[in-house]
C-alpha cells in the first residue's frame, strides 16, 4: 500500500511502520520539519525489497532509499546527514555547529547505533514482536541480559543528561532524533526503564513531544497505541490489550 504526499523535489522509499522495527521513521519526521516529499511504502512482508527493481536501487535489500533528481542515497544515517547538511540553515541544526559539537554528535550517534540499538534494543524489541506475532511466550533467557544492557545504557544517559539538556549537548541533535522512535517502544514494553530515571524521563518527554515526531506517528498506521509517555500501569494495560 502506498501513501503519497505532495512533493516538490524529494522522493523516498521507506517502510514506515514502527511495528516492523525499522528505525527509519526518524528520517521521515525530520524531513517533515524541512520540506514535503513523496513517500513510497515498500512492503517488506511481501519481500518487495528483494525485487530486481528494488535491488537495482539498494543492493543490500534494505530500506530506506532517498532519491532527489538523479541523486540516490541509502543508509539512513547517511541520508539524515545529507539532508541535515543541505538544510542546516532552514531548520534546526541537528549536526552541531562547531567541530567539537559535530564530533560529539557523531560519537553519540555511533553509541546509539551500537551500544543501544545493535547490542540491546533491536534484539530485545524483536523478541517482544516475535512472541506477540507468533503468539508464543517471551524468551526470558534472551531478553533478561538485553534488558540489563538497556539499563546500563540508560544509566550512562541519566548521568550525562544531568549535565546537558540533550544527549550530545544543549541542543537537539541527530542522536536524539534517531533514538526517539525506539524509546517510544521502550515506553510501552518496559516503561520503568524510562520512568525510573528522572533525567531520561524528562529528555524522553521533550524529544517525543516535538511536532514532527507527532506528525510521523499520525502517518504510521502500524502503530496501535497513543503517543505516551506511559506510566507503568498504563503500559501494562496496553500490552495486554
Amino acid at each position, binding site marked *: 500500500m502506498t501513501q503519497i504526499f505532495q512533493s516538490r523535489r524529494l522522493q523516498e522509499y521507506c517502510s514506515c511502520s514502527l511495528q516492523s522495527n525499522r528505525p527509519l521513521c526518524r528520517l521521515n519526521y525530520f524531513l517533515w520539519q524541512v520540506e514535503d516529499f513523496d513517500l513510497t511504502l515498500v512492503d517488506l512482508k511481501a519481500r518487495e525489497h528483494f525485487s530486481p527493481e528494488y535491488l537495482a536501487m539498494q*543492493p543490500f535489500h534494505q530500506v530506506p532509499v532517498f532519491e532527489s533528481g538523479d541523486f540516490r542515497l541509502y543508509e539512513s544515517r547517511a541520508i539524515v*546527514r545529507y539532508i541535515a547538511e543541505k538544510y542546516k540553515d532552514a531548520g534546526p541544526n541537528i549536526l552541531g555547529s562547531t*567541530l567539537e559539537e559535530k*564530533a*560529539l554528535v557523531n*560519537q553519540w*550517534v*555511533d*553509541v546509539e547505533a551500537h551500544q543501544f540499538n545493535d547490542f540491546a534494543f533491536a534484539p530485545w524489541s524483536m523478541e517482544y514482536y516475535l512472541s506477540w506475532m507468533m503468539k508464543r511466550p517471551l524468551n526470558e533467557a534472551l531478553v533478561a541480559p538485553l534488558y540489563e544492557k538497556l539499563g546500563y545504557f540508560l544509566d*550512562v544517559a541519566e548521568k550525562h543528561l544531568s549535565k546537558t539538556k540533550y544527549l550530545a549537548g544543549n541542543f537537539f541533535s541527530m542522536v536524539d532524533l534517531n533514538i526517539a522512535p525506539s524509546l517510544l517502544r521502550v515506553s510501552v514494553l518496559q516503561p520503568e526503564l524510562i520512568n525510573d530515571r528522572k533525567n531520561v524521563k524528562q529528555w524522553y518527554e521533550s524529544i517525543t513531544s516535538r511536532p514532527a515526531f507527532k506528525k510521523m506517528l499520525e502517518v504510521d498506521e502500524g502503530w496501535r497505541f497513543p503517543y505516551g509517555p506511559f506510566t507503568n500501569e498504563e503500559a501494562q494495560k496496553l500490552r495486554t490489550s
Partner: protein
Amino acid sequence: MGIIVLGSYLSPYTLRVLIELEELGVDYELKLVNLKQGEHRTPEFLKMQPFGQVPVLQDGELTLFESRAITRYLAEKFDGQGTPLLGKSMKEKALVNQWVEVESQNYDRPLISIVEQVVWTPSWGKTTNEEIVAAEMAKLEKVLDIYEVQLTNHKYLAGDFFSLADLGHLPGTHLLVNIGKKGAIFAARPHLNAWWEDISSRPSFKKIMAKTS
C-alpha cells in the same frame, strides 16, 4: 599538547584511527591500553569511556570515542592537510557517508564474528566454532558480491577517489585475509581483490601494520 590516542594494536578500531592519522600526516601520541589485563574495564577508564572500549581520542579539552566519530572528526579538522578523505561536494560526501555506514552495518559485523572465531578465539586458547564461521562467511560473501559490482564500476567505494569509506575497511580486512587466512573469498572476486591490493599497498597502512607484528 597534541593529539593523544588511547588504544591497542590488537584492536582494529584503534588501527583505523592510527592509519588515518598517518594519511593526514598528523603527529600523535599513542597511549597503550592493556586489553588482556582488562585495563579498559577499570573505573578510571570507564570514566572516560563508559562502555569500556578503545580507541579514545584526546585533543585538548575534547575527549572523543567511537572510532568512526573519531575518524570523521580528524578528517574534518585536518581537511586540506594530507590525503583528502571526505569527498569534495556535498553529494560526494554523502556517498562517502553511505559507504561508511555500509561498512559499519553490513561488512564489519560478519567480518568481526569470523575474526573472533578464527583469530582471537584460538589466541585465548579456546576452540573455533566452525558453524558460526560458516554462517558468517556465507553472510559476508553475499556482501562481497555487492562490493564486487560496485568496484567493477568505480575504482573505490564512494567513487573514483580514495576516502574514509575505503580506509575504514583496512584493519578488519587485514585480520580476515592476512591473519585469518580467508583471502580466497577476495581472490574469487577480481575487482574486489584489485581494490584490496590497492588500498593495502598504501604507505600509511604498511607503516601501522609494521608496528603490530
